[in-house]
């Protein structure tokens, strides 16, 4: 059914007289809109969003170009030298730097990002799945009434507060109780370990991304048609088997979506991680054993935040935009990856 379209001018239009041009513009906007005008105006506003995104990608790419050009498209992602040192050099070169000032090998930062994101998403996913199954299936009503608001609360806490607790409580505890002086001495020629590092960063990041994953998985588990769970129970499956082999299996698209969302959040976490990760562009070496967990790192987003004061120096600006470009492309790749992962599930008849 189609709505009627109004006349072009209202019956009272002739009586409204505004002398100044802005008055006339506002008067014209205040007259009743026709549907065609409305569609055009609202559509323009909606397209503004698209424009903003296009501008965002364009600006970031253009500003990142000098670093990409100076270092080669791929090799700036690799290893070679101390990235902190390289960034420091960039800051020192002033407004008209020579090409050599753009030298950057960002692998330690990328490694730190992959390490923290990967570890926290994996641990968080396992934890969230078990917690979601607990909430939906096994929790007595009274405990469920406590756990569900707890999850909502955790999701609402700002990341800077997690970072604060991490740096004022967790890191000192790790530094004094888990790291022996001998361990500190063993690496003191290379790097200082004082509690902030891989372990605390992963713990804090996991706590940050778990509540969102739990919420998504719980919603999905609750939306499973009871015909399936009842059918499984009637076939002789016990409660765990019903949940695991039917509900969780049917909720796989939601689990993928939760993982993608959590990954995106973990990649972009800047301030919280810059507080607890040790803030050194350093690649922890797994060969070091347990010490590996305490070595400092600095993910990409945290690097951006920490270097933003020096953004007036052109090489630093180009580097920061290069990191931003990398993060943007990663988010895009994640979305596409999530979509591709859900395709085979669609075949089986799951609602994706």
């Amino acid at each position, binding site marked *: 059914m189609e709505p009627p379209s109004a006349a072009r001018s209202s019956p009272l239009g002739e009586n409204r007289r505004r002398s100044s041009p802005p008055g006339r513009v506002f008067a014209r906007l205040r007259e009743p809109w026709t549907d065609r005008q409305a569609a055009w105006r609202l559509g323009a506003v909606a397209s503004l969003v698209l424009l903003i995104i296009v501008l965002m990608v364009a600006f970031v790419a253009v500003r990142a170009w000098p670093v990409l050009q100076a270092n080669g498209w791929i090799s700036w992602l690799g290893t070679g030298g101390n990235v902190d040192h390289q960034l420091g050099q960039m800051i020192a070169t002033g407004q008209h730097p020579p090409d050599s000032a753009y030298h950057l090998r960002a692998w330690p930062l990328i490694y730190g990002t992959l390490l923290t994101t990967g570890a926290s998403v994996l641990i968080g996913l396992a934890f969230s799945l078990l917690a979601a199954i607990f909430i939906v299936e096994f929790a007595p009503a009274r405990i469920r009434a406590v756990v569900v608001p707890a999850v*909502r609360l955790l999701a609402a806490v700002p*990341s800077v507060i997690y970072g604060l607790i991490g740096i004022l409580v967790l890191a000192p505890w790790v530094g004094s109780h888990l790291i022996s002086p001998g361990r500190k001495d063993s690496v003191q020629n290379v790097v200082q370990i004082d509690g902030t590092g891989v372990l605390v960063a992963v713990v804090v990041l996991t706590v940050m991304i778990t509540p969102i994953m739990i919420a998504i998985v719980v919603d999905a588990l609750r939306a499973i048609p009871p015909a399936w769970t009842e059918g499984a129970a009637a076939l002789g499956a016990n409660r765990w088997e019903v949940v695991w082999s039917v509900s969780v299996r049917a909720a796989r698209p939601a689990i993928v979506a939760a993982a993608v969302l959590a990954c995106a959040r973990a990649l972009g976490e800047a301030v919280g991680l810059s507080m607890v990760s040790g803030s050194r562009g350093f690649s922890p070496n797994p060969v070091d054993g347990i010490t590996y967990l305490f070595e400092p790192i600095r993910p990409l987003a945290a690097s951006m935040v920490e270097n933003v004061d020096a953004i007036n120096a052109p090489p630093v600006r180009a580097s920061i935009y290069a990191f931003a470009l990398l993060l943007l492309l990663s988010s895009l790749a994640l979305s596409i990856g999530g979509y591709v992962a859900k395709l085979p599930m669609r075949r089986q008849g799951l609602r994706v």
Partner: protein
Amino acid sequence: MTIVPPTAALRRDAPRPAPRGDATRGWRWSQRLALVACWACGLALCAVTAAIVVYMGVRGVQYLNPELLFSRPTPGLQQHTTGGILDPIVGTIVLTVIGIALAVPLAVAAAVWLVEYGRPAPLARAVESGIEVVAGTPDIVIAIFGLAIFQLPLFAPLSFTASGGGVFGRSFLAAGAMMSLIALPLVFGAAREGLMAIPTHVREASWALGKTRICTIRTILLPQIRTNIATGSALGMGRIVGDTAVVVVLLGATLQLERQGDVPILGNLRGTGSTLTSYVYGASPAGEGNAPQKAYAAAFVLLLIVLTLNAAVDLLGRRKEPRA
């Protein structure tokens, strides 16, 4: 075969509740282990939440006194000389107001266009995907983008311009604009959900009376999604209040609200300042301030604001149910 009389005669066994049985009888050991793991995760969740809330509460009450709320921060080396947190609180409020004031019209207009008009269809799909992209973009990238935009000479009036001609690009207006991008997907999602929940016959009834589509939207649909917009705004405000990256990049990180130029309010908007989040970041050992007690106090206030907004969202959500 006998006929059983239709009414129950003697019932020797009184009805008893369904047998509970042994809950895990017959389970494999791996399944019992999984059950234990589920319980452990659930209880750990409660424990972590309780620990965070209790710890922040204890520290906050310990370090927060009313004079902190009303005195301005001053730079200083010792903690007791660094003043209060009035400016960060004002900064948070101002930034949230600007962000929501920009986000709500944009989001509602986009939602209305998408649900009610939506032609051409590829554009509608593109807008929808675009808002999802904005929702998924890290806030640090949005902040950096904001810096790129607001450092253009075009936007010089919105912030401070240095004597050499370089636009500073950092001000409340700049930060507020980017905060509106952060809140936009939340308000958009809520408004769209509200619009899609209104059945078609409501619109058709209005059209049958001769109203145009836009008039229907303005007089019937928009009032009905007021609660949805409020919920979305509360969610967006929660996100704005808790965001640090945009503030650190785009607000200039001065402790006090610095006015730019002489015009009273506009000057402040063009000027720099801080919010609770950037204050906490600065006062923590990761920043320059190194005033952990003030950091706890500010974090406590921040937590209270966020929890209040959360409770408002819950309340709005529950108020919608009986009406629907």
